[in-house]
């Protein structure tokens, strides 16, 4: 029986919500099979990774902390992607944000006051914007594809991080380890409740999502982004400048990635080390897609991917899985989601055998 894809008259609401759920389930199943094929305990691994974080209350805080940067970056990326601006440089903009915040830290090491942390945050956002401005400029002025430029800058800025940590930003007390000094109390993100690891970055993520939802849904800017991404000719006809839109969405996504970076540096890390770039910038791309480029979707998707991180850490210790293995799940998640997305717009129809001619 042959099948073909037939366009639905209207996008299927059912599949819209079902597709991400199916994607997660399929990832778990196929992941288990894959692991077993490679010699690990497949089912055990999957259960460890996906269910432990949910069933262990201690792990819930981990989820929140891991999800926060993913959500913030993903919200920014979803805005850019809606405008068809493919910012793949979130990882670099995230690191830039941390660099910006750390610069303020090193300048204010001997000082105190509630103004230091907000200054760090602003510096981080500006740094992310500055890095994102480069591909924005190259695209609008020279029509250079932003996928490659944002990507290349990721690698470049990470080298800058290594350089600074090895030389002028190095903690004199570090004795051979390239890292900055620990951030002081005024330079670190306070915790929501003592005794927990939930820091202020977590509610900030929620606030960012709410603001983004409002702006994208109600404002002219949100409309502009959607039109430019959906039909560039119509956008121009409607009086929207494509170049201005590219700038705006790159700066916004750069700023948000930078925000995530400085929050992460001032929160869980409380210092800057070479291991700081953990790939959140790339994972956030998956979060954005899984969340359907929608701010609240990004929140949920961020939590799902946080599960894969937290679970992956657990599996590292209990099963000996290498940390890079979480990439398998994340990649598969996106595969299954993209596949499932097709069924939102199309449905499967069997090809019927040609009807023989009736009597003329």
């Amino acid at each position, binding site marked *: 029986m042959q099948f073909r894809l037939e366009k639905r008259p209207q996008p299927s609401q059912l599949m819209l919500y079902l597709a991400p759920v199916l994607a997660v389930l399929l990832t778990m199943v196929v992941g288990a099979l894959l692991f077993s094929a490679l010699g690990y305990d497949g089912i055990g691994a999957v259960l460890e990774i996906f269910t432990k974080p949910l069933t262990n209350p201690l792990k819930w805080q981990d989820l929140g902390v891991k999800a926060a940067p993913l959500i913030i970056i993903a919200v920014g990326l979803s805005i850019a992607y809606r405008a068809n601006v493919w910012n793949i440089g979130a990882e670099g903009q995230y690191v830039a944000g941390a660099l910006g915040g750390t610069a303020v830290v090193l300048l204010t090491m001997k000082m105190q006051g509630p103004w230091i942390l907000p200054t760090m945050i602003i510096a981080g956002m500006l740094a992310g914007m500055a890095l994102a401005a480069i591909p924005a400029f190259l695209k609008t002025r020279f029509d250079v594809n932003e996928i490659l430029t944002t990507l290349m800058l990721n690698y470049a800025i990470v080298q800058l991080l290594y350089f600074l940590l090895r030389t002028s930003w190095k903690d004199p007390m570090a004795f051979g380890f390239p890292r900055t000094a620990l951030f002081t109390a005024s330079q670190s993100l306070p915790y929501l409740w003592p005794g927990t690891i939930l820091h202020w970055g977590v509610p900030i993520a929620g606030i960012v999502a709410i603001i983004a939802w409002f702006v994208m849904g109600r404002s002219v800017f949100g*409309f502009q982004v959607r039109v430019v991404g959906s*039909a560039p000719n*119509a956008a121009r*006809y*409607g009086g929207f400048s494509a170049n201005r839109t590219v700038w705006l969405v790159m700066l916004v996504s750069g700023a948000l990635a930078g925000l995530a970076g400085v929050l992460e540096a001032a929160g869980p890390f409380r210092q800057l080390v070479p291991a700081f770039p953990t790939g959140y910038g790339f994972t956030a791309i998956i979060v954005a897609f899984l969340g359907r480029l929608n701010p609240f979707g990004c929140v949920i998707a961020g939590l799902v991917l946080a599960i894969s991180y937290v679970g992956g850490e657990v599996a590292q210790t209990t099963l000996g899985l290498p940390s890079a293995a979480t990439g398998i799940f994340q990649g598969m998640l996106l595969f299954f989601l993209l596949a499932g997305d097709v069924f939102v717009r199309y449905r499967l129809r069997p090809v019927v055998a040609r009807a023989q001619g009736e009597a*003329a």
Partner: protein
Amino acid sequence: MDTSPVPRLELRGITKRFPGVLANDNVGFAVMPGEIHALLGENGAGKSTLVKMIYGIMQPDAGEILWNGQPVTVANPKAARRLGIGMVFQHFSLFEAMTVLENIALGLDAKVPQRELEAKIRAVMQQYGLLLDPHRTVSTLSVGERQRIEIVRALLLNPSLLIMDEPTSVLTPQEVEQLFVVLRQLAKEGCSILYISHKLHEIKALCDTATILRGGKLVDTCDPKVETSRSMAEKMIGAGLKDIVKGKDRSFGAARFTVRELSVKSDSQFGTSLDRIGFEVRAGEILGIAGVAGNGQNELLLALDGEIPVGADAILMDGKPIGARNTSERRRLGLCAVPEERHGHAAVPDFTLADNSVLTARDRLGMVAGGLINSGKAKTYTGDVISAFSVKAQGHGSAANSLSGGNLQKYIMGREILQNPGVLVVSQPTWGVDAGAAAAIHQAIVDLAAQGTAVVVISQDLDELLSLCDTLAVINGGRLSQKKVVGEVSIEEIGLLMGGVHGTAEETHITAGAAHAVPA
């Protein structure tokens, strides 16, 4: 022994269904050898679908196709070509960046060595007078020349049936004549021709038989030499025809829209530069701009509505220079425009109608406050447009791409007209639109002009322009001819202008509206 001639092609009971629409319903007719057979119908009547099944692109759900008396299954275009069926599509299957020779090679099923192919092509071109340089890149050719590539491709197969799908929509009147010469020669040699069109006078001039489709059904098979244009039009449309109601003794007011020395350099390889275009439109006047596609119409519209930058004094509205203003500013001053591309330019296909209203009407009708969109106002306005223009849609929340072509065009025209513009510029207002919607759109344009708006209509359809417009100019190669009054200029002269010749030929006067009655 049965001595009646065997039809080259016969269709019996052909039916084809798509989700939501019955494209062909029990259609049947026959084409004899050497016959030029017209397939006549409005847009959406089912002609394209029928022909796609003859050429093997689709399969019928029911019915049979007989070739020289034998039932056949045309599984795909290759099989069609093997039978001897050639097709020249309305939308060319050409590769812009490749040469004529490469394009023809791609259209062939067998591998032919380049030199042999070139010799064969030159022979065919000689035989039928279709002259082309095989080594030119397609992007440098005019539309008429590109069509010749398609025809040569089809002729190389030595077809016994040649299908032409709306071939003349892109040709000047002179080029149409040249095409007819080629087709008549082919028919004399025994090749059957299936000629799809909705242009009645062409069919009367060229064809031996006409099969008329309407709404997927067969209406009649008749002899166009015997029928009148009006009778065939009525069969196509199915109802009594109604002429456009234009007020008598219309006088025009002051000049509202003036264009002077408008020049635009095209930045793309395939575009046309505009060269010192100038015209003036008075209040209440409808100016038509005729021309074959690809002569700068697109660029002209983009220049007029502000999507391409022009000199500050090149465009004046109500006496004020607006050339330096962007699209939004021009809208605020009262200039509304409708580009020819419905999907992706005039409207966003995935957006709702309400969102599409926000696209152009938001400033002029106050839908934006403090950077936020007032969706209530947008929805109300959309509702007004839908009811005033009888748009068949479920409401302001329908997606633009869920509307039929005619309904979407009605909505778009309505969206601009209800903004009460002082100047309206539209391009191809009824392209691909069914007759009923086309008539409604034409009437709306006339009514708008009657209220004092200056209207510019850019169109490839001469008949439309002649019945709608007060004055006419022709665009060719980015240059605009002098404005003429409709009723004081002949078709021949217009045809020559469209083809780029600026002399005058024998003039025969025609009166506006006589060549083609606009159906209701």
